[in-house]
């Protein structure tokens, strides 16, 4: 097969003027989804002297999917990781302001970060299953929290794998090493592992950036499945993905939360000109 050079210049597709591609699909309303689950008040995060997230104030609704978009280095991952205190791993990291989870300060003096992380699960950019069997990967969390009964563990493992839509693919090789799975399967396994500890919030940090389109579609379907059961926050570089999966979207730029609105509104009728520039691709 050959491509004629003439064809390339002459048949360039006409740029769509509208932003229809970002129109989110219609979704059903979620019952009990009008409460605030996570709420940031003048919340800043510093790496040493550097202020990575600047005085962010936002309310995240329970049971809905919230997407966080923005160019690289804008602080969106930092903000997401602050919610379950994964930033504690970085010694120079500290915060000001307040970040409330269920009305309690995440960075409060008496907050038990281990308990918090149990309630706020996280899936990372790169699939990171443990070098153990599939079963042990899923059972890791429940075992930590005191479930040792083999039958009960099996139940949890099956339920979690089913929720993560990977049960059919792995049910006959639960004792095989999880590193033998494909990237997309590994990522869904990581979701299942997080679901096994029965969190209330699911933080997804660019969960599809290391996956091919087919695996990405599966993860997106999975997010739709989980919508309504968990409060989901997803950081993504892919704006179409944000529009496909989320109910509301936050746009970060250089550490500042520029706009936070319903996804339909943010992508079709952004209030801030910076948001408009970003989603129309004038900068990235």
């Amino acid at each position, binding site marked *: 097969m050959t491509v004629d050079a003439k064809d390339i210049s002459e048949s360039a597709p006409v740029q769509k003027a509208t932003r229809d591609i970002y129109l989110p699909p219609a979704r059903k309303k979620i019952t009990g989804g009008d409460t605030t689950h996570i709420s940031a008040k003048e919340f800043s995060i510093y790496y040493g002297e550097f202020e990575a997230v600047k005085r962010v104030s936002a309310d995240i609704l329970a049971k809905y999917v919230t997407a966080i978009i923005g160019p690289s280095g804008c602080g969106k991952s930092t903000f997401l990781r602050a919610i379950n205190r994964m930033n504690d791993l970085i010694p120079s990291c500290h915060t000001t302001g307040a970040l409330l989870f269920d009305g309690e300060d995440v960075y409060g003096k008496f907050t038990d970060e281990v308990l918090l*992380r149990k309630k706020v699960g996280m899936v990372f950019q790169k699939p990171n299953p443990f*070098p153990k069997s599939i079963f042990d990967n899923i059972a*890791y969390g429940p075992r930590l929290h005191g479930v040792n009964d083999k039958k009960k563990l099996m139940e949890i493992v099956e339920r979690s794998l089913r929720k993560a839509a990977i049960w059919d693919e792995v049910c006959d090789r639960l004792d095989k090493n999880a590193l033998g799975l494909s990237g997309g399967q590994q990522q869904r396994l990581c979701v299942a592992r997080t679901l096994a500890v029965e969190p209330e919030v699911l933080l997804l940090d660019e969960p599809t950036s290391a996956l091919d389109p087919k695996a990405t579609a599966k993860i997106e379907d999975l997010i739709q499945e989980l919508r309504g059961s968990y409060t989901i926050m997803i950081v993504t570089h892919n704006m179409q993905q944000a529009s496909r999966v989320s109910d509301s979207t936050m746009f970060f730029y250089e550490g500042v939360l520029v706009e936070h609105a319903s996804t339909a509104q943010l992508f079709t009728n952004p209030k801030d000109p910076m948001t408009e520039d970003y989603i129309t691709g004038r900068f990235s």
Partner: protein
Amino acid sequence: MNIGTRKILDRSFTAVGIGSIIVMAMALMIVVVPIVTNGIGAVFFTGTIEHRKMLFNEFNRGDSENLSSEAASSNRYRAKVYSMMTGFEAELETMVPEKQAEYKAKYSQVRTSLQALLGPLPGDPEPMLTRSKYGQTRWEKAEEKLHDLLYESKWDNSNPDVMAKEYFVSRAIGFEGTSLVNLFPYVENNLDKILLPEFTCYWGFLTDSSVDSHFFGGIWPEIQGTFFLAIGAMLFAFPLGVVAAVYFTEYAKPGFLNSMLRSANSTLAGVPSIVFGMFGLAFFINTMKVSESKSVIAGALTLAIMILPTIIRSAEEAILAVPKTYREASLSLGSTKWNTIVTVILPAALPGILTGGVISLGRAAGETAPIIFTAAVSVGSAIGLADVFSSPTPALSWNIYNLASEHEAASQIRHVQYGMVLALVSIVLLLNLSAIVLRARVSKKLKG
């Protein structure tokens, strides 16, 4: 850089690399081949009837009927030798005094040579040392001793400008005209019938205790002592080292104290082992009084201190090499730091930690200096497990040095020295091999 130069550079680097590998391989061969060929001689050799007698008397091993029939056949030839000697002794009595004195001196040399070759002669008093109770147990040694019997060694000092030169004079010529002159060709021609050489496979070398300070017998006490010391050192150093590595990598806050501790650890790794030996004597024995004097426990502790820095280092590196994502995954599931370390990080770091551990084990097995003052004795029997707190033990590394340089008959027991060297090299090699296998198995399990 143009493509021609680049290719020439690539090729010359390849050539230099291959060349250095060949040089190293040759150096290794030069070291290993004599160790192996000579060391194997301790187990496989041509043994004489004296060896079988020794085994039967000292270790109660062998077939007594077979041995007595062999002894009978050997004794028939020996009887001839002895009768020649008694004949000459009678002849000596009849000689004129000057001649008598001259021959007596020569004859006593012959007697000594014969004793070395065949063991005690009839009429000799029961020897004190076990080594004098038997003749030559090894055929190649017997041939050397035969040479000593047949030829007298003399030194040519005629030219004062050069070093004296050794030359040999046939003893038979000295006894020309006497009845003893027939003894020399007789022994030479019938030595195999007197000593009955036979291919011997003496596995007991590895499992027997030594007799008469390694003149006969095996090296089991040394092998056992080496294992006791090395494993004892590991028992102390491995858990301590892993815990210290976990502290350094997971808990220590960067700062002055931490960097001091780290550099102290690095310095410790470079301290000469004899210093550890002196430290062990001064600290564990004289100050802490872990035992009255030298003991396995004191030696093991000293070796443990010596290998600790290496274990800490390798464990630290193994822990740091565990991907950060494992830690994140575990913590995000609501695991505590301690739980994350025990259930995720240490298992993932296990191959590296084990490799460092086993290599240190090999080093502990091979070190001499730390145990000279703390644990090693030159000759001793194998000790029981209960005695490790109170008694010292022989150990391969120290006994190799001792047998090669301080033993009163070092040149007579070369095969024992080489046998010990081969045993030690094999033990260390085996340990390293097991490290490789262990590592491969664990990492295969991790990779799935």
